[in-house]
């Protein structure tokens, strides 16, 4: 296990390094001149003299060779310093740091919702296999997986805010404002996870230990919850990485729609304002979170089910 973990970590480090290079190159090679844009930001009136432009370029360190710029940015990033925002004039890392708890609250609520909804739905679909309830749940999950987040969000707004006037539509004021964005985020993953759980449970139903549990007189629901669920959950762990990805992506859309002041909204704002250091910072941060989450998911297989051959997992990845 230790060796496997070490190997996975060794793969994650170059991946992150390559990602940082990709992000940095993408942003620096973007069409447009960041120095000119920055000069205009500071002085929107009139022409910008070549001297002023050179001055700004030097201030931003853009007159140095690409490799020097990248190395100094990466060096800072390793120490948690992602540079200064062009627009906010504040430190990029402290701005991200300020928004992490806000986004984490939303993602956490959505994750809890996904578990809370998909487990009973998956169990119900499996237990009522081929019954009309199973078919109804299939249609529901099909819809859930096909509705785009940005449409689902407005359907929720129309229903709960406009028509019923129950919940707030924007901002971060108490738990009520968490409800709609969290549901928006949870719908897609719930649809998929409940279906996965259903098929996994159906597979487990054929196992001997299920028959033994049943034959010693346990009720069907007890058997499913106590013996089935635990075994059926193992293959689902594989999908957790995809759930985190969906949460990261969904957070961008949900935060924009519900004016939720998290990292996702910061990303879209930074891109809209062409705030290069901020873009590099948030994207590197998102990449790091995603890589670490996937690493943890991979490592957790071994803990949950030691039978899984880890070496094989390395080959596949």
């Amino acid at each position, binding site marked *: 296990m230790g060796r496997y973990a070490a190997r996975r970590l060794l793969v994650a480090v170059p991946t992150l390094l390559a990602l940082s290079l990709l992000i940095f190159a993408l942003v620096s090679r973007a069409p447009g001149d960041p120095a000119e844009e920055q000069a205009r930001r500071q002085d929107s009136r009139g022409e910008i003299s070549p001297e002023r432009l050179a001055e700004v370029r030097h201030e931003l360190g853009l007159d140095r060779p690409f490799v020097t710029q990248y190395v100094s940015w990466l060096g800072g990033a390793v120490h948690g310093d992602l540079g200064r925002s062009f627009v906010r004039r504040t430190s990029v890392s402290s701005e991200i740091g300020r928004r992490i708890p806000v986004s984490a609250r939303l993602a956490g609520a959505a994750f809890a919702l996904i578990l809370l909804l998909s487990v009973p739905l998956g169990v119900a679909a499996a237990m009522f296999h081929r019954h009309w309830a199973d078919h109804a749940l299939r249609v529901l999950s099909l819809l859930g997986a096909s509705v785009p987040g940005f449409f689902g969000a407005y359907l929720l707004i129309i229903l709960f805010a406009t028509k019923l006037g129950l919940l707030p539509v924007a901002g971060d004021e108490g738990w009520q404002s968490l409800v709609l964005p969290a549901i928006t985020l949870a719908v897609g993953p719930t649809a998929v996870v409940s279906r996965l759980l259903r098929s996994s449970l159906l597979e487990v139903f054929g196992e001997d230990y299920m028959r033994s549990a049943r034959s010693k007189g346990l009720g069907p629901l007890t058997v499913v919850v106590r013996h089935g669920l635990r075994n059926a959950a193992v293959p689902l762990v594989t999908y957790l990485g995809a759930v985190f990805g969906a949460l990261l992506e969904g957070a961008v859309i949900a935060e924009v729609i519900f004016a939720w002041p998290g990292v996702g909204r910061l990303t879209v704002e930074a891109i*809209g304002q062409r705030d290069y250091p901020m873009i590099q910072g948030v994207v590197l941060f998102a990449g790091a979170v995603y890589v670490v989450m996937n690493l943890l998911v991979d490592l957790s297989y071994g803990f949950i089910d030691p039978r899984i051959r880890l070496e094989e997992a390395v080959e596949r990845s």
Partner: protein
Amino acid sequence: MSAPEAALREAGDAFVPQGRRILRRMLRDRSAVIGFVIVVIMALAALLAPWLARHDPIATNFSNRYAPSSGAHPFGTDNLGRDEFSRILHGARISLGMAVAATLGITIVGVTLGLVAGMSGRATSTVIMRLADVELALPGLILALVVVGLLGQGLRNLIITIVLVQWPTFARIVRGMTLKVREQDFVEAARSVGASRTRIMVRHVLPNLVGPVVVLSTLDMGRVLLAVSGLSFLGFGIGPPTPEWGAMLAEAKTFLDRSPALLIWPGLAITVMVLAFNLAGDGLRDLLDPRTVESTPGWERRRARMGADESVR
């Protein structure tokens, strides 16, 4: 490996049986038939939009704003008095056109790079696959946002972005299939008579990938349409007044209190299309999957299989 990828990979393992048997089996899978019918109807609607739409999709009429559904305007009119039905129809041309163009691009780039990675030596293969890994180390939408944000809005940039972001999944699967086909006897036979690597690639390996690739592309269409309309919703697609579903939805959110229907029509259009692509792609995969037995109905087969393939359903 993510679940959609697992599903695609599974689709990739499929092979192509022939003839009328396919059609017969296909007609038995009800949800797939529904999916195909919707796709065909919407494709026709998009192609025939100039003849089907009774109004100019960008002609404004300020004396008839926010009109409810009526005979003349089946979906009512929008904030500028434009006919919503005509806009949805013309929007199909742009939204579906972009999805098709992007999917074609992903297919071409993905198949080429996957094939090359599968057929060439270690160095080339490593370069291509590591690049794919790095791109996959970031959630697709976030990478897409950065790329399109830096390129600037516009249809062409949006399509380029989606191809750049989504080729890796495709290339990975194609490489896997290529590695399998490469080991077959007929490839060995071709090699033994002195066929060049390029010739083997194009004449012997590629034809064997056509079936699975068609399935992969169909399965991908729903995802691509979601990406297209999502980025367009965020303002990176085509600007007004051209009708495009994602942009129409974004525009309608401003008038949500006045007329929620303006938001619901384009949203519904996107949802129905994604649903149809998923159903159709799914049916196509089942059809081409050698493990599916002809006499068992769809749901019975699905029961037997493990989870990941459910994800696209």
